[in-house]
């Protein structure tokens, strides 16, 4: 009767990418795999989560140990690359409260490679709904996953864990947002074909920038890049003339000499009536004169600066982790309490009620007659004593019943109880 939550899986810490890739579940086969999990003898409910950083099977099972063994076998049926030792060496198993805690931590992005990254919650939701559709989710996992979504939301809103940019391109966007109130009416100029520059440009486009100019020493490459980014190509010798139009300028060339000097930027700023300009220098050597940063309304950040901010932010995130762990702890306790309440078989509840009724009736009888003279405190002491007696008497049979709960004799014991105490069907 009693159900346990078991998680067996591997993640970015326990398995290298080659292993994770192979063990991962194909989305087209997911429904089928879910049904296979639930057809294992000890398992009643199951959800599979399979992202590039983790593969986990989360189940509700009537016997934890058997379920863990069966799940390992199930995962071993996945493809496995050679030369990485046994799959077992990469797997972890969580049971009971540790399993609940693990899922809550994963959903809240405390277990992610980059702590606080937001994608994982969406992925877990997708896999939960896939399982829901395949019909492999019951009362317990339903509740467990919905709680995990709540935990993730609480952690996001009540701690600063997700509020800081931790990658170079998101820091760049973050800074742009501190300078400009909106990005959709801003123009970006991308100078050079470096990979980092393209990444930042993409991130800016993702944040609303629609106007992009691209220039490169070879015009053909500029045209290619412009097509890739849906921007306008500009000849390299012409780009200084277009600078007045650009609000964000990304330099990502390997040029040995400086592309922009302080004085030329000062001239551009004057032409722009000192509208703010944000220079992002991602070149191998300096593309932009560092003294540009000294000009009013001009801001220059190079790769080191951006990485510095990202590092600081990551530190800030880690400082928030303990707050998040506290939230997870609270929620785990609440969930386990719910799970335990499920665990009380109707017969046990009926037995408790029967004995409680007897106790109450006898107490009333005695207090109304022979024990009339008792003081309030004595009455209370008597209440406590009789209640404690009932609990002591029930302790052994209930423990036994719970342990036996997974056996086939269960029905026999329950039947016997019903007969002995005249519990009857209600």
């Amino acid at each position: 009767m009693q159900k346990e939550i078991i998680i067996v899986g591997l993640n970015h810490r326990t398995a290298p990418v080659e292993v994770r890739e192979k063990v991962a579940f194909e989305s087209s086969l997911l429904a089928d795999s879910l049904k296979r999990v639930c057809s294992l003898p000890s398992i009643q409910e199951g959800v599979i989560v399979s992202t590039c950083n983790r593969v986990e099977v989360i189940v509700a099972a009537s016997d934890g140990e058997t379920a863990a063994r069966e799940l390992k076998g199930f995962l071993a049926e996945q493809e496995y690359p050679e030369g990485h030792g046994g799959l077992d060496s990469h797997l972890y198993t969580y049971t009971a409260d540790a399993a609940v805690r693990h899922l809550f931590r994963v959903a809240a992005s405390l277990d992610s490679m980059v702590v606080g990254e937001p994608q994982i919650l969406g992925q877990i939701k997708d896999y939960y709904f896939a399982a829901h559709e395949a019909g492999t989710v019951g009362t317990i996992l339903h509740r467990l996953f919905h709680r995990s979504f709540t935990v993730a939301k609480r952690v996001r809103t009540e701690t600063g864990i997700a509020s800081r940019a931790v990658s170079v391109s998101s820091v760049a966007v973050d800074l742009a947002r501190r300078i400009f109130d909106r990005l959709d009416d801003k123009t970006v100029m991308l100078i050079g074909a470096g990979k980092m520059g393209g990444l930042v440009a993409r991130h800016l486009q993702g944040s609303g920038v629609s106007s992009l100019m691209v220039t490169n020493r070879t015009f053909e490459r500029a045209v290619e890049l412009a097509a890739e980014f849906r921007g306008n190509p500009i000849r390299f010798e012409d780009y200084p003339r277009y600078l007045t139009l650009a609000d964000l300028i990304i330099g990502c060339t390997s040029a040995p000499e400086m592309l922009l000097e302080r004085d030329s930027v000062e001239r551009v700023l004057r032409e722009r009536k000192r509208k703010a300009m944000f220079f992002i220098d991602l070149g191998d050597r300096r593309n932009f004169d560092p003294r540009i940063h000294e000009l009013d309304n001009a801001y220059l950040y190079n790769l080191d600066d951006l990485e510095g901010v990202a590092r600081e932010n990551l530190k800030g995130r880690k400082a928030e982790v303990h707050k998040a762990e506290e939230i997870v702890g609270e929620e785990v306790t609440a969930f386990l309490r719910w799970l335990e309440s499920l665990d009380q078989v109707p017969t046990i509840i009926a037995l408790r009620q029967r004995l409680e009724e007897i106790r109450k009736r006898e107490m009333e009888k005695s207090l109304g007659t022979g024990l009339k003279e008792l003081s309030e405190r004595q009455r209370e002491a008597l209440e406590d004593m009789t209640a404690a007696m009932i609990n002591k008497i029930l302790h052994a049979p209930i423990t036994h019943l719970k342990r036996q709960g997974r056996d086939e004799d269960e029905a026999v014991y329950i039947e016997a109880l019903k007969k002995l105490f005249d519990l009857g069907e209600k």
Partner: protein
Amino acid sequence: MEVTLLKVTVVVYLLATASFIVYVVLLKEFFARLSPLILLGGFIIHTSALAVHFIQTGYPAIMQFREALSFYTWLMVGIYLLVQLKYRLAVLGCFIGPLAFIMSLAAFAFAAGREEIPPALKTYWLPLHVTLAFLGNAVFALAFGVSLMYLLQEYQLKSKKMPSLYERFPSLETLDRLNYLFLVWGFPLMTLGIITGSMWAGVHWGKYWSWDPRQISSAVTWLLYGTLLQGRIAAGWHGKKAAVLTIVGFAVVLGYFLWGDYLFPSRHGGRFE
């Protein structure tokens, strides 16, 4: 009654200030929504205090320095609440909240003067003049707030250090635009305040301009803000320069409002003889 209401107002402004500070430190959205509501509560109580005064005396509460300070605070909070409606700038409240608290408290520090107003002064030119001049200055108080925020945000970007305390500051562009907006509203109000003041003076003192120290200081700030507005419109002054000038202008206004009458006694500030 009026005094009790004013005392409650001070306490509520203090609560609002505390709530704004909690918001800036903890960055909990809840306080961003709560703090302006507390301030609104204070504003309503403040309004009723002013209404009680008007009903009891038949005249707006602007005749004494303490009353004027309180009235000015009321206008400033009111304008901030309007701005908050449109721009959701809880951070700006962190400047306005404490300012409202300090000024409404300071109003109590000044002794209640003579209650009687010379009959000659009981015209509606005076309340009109005071209201317009104070409205202008209250708008400048908000301009002062956003300018201060601008300088803090700018300092962070230039120093490349980003403490989380200022994470919720609006962008430089937004702050700069608000500076412009407040300037565009504040300047005409101030101008009208000066015009109505000198009209009133013309009627009661017989002279439109009498080189009263308050008149001189008003002229100075008027020129300062006028230059700034002109610079913004014609020469495209932006950002830091505009922020610094706004702060200087407000410092002059506030400084003179608080201490000017002690340094240069004049017919303003309740001395009408």
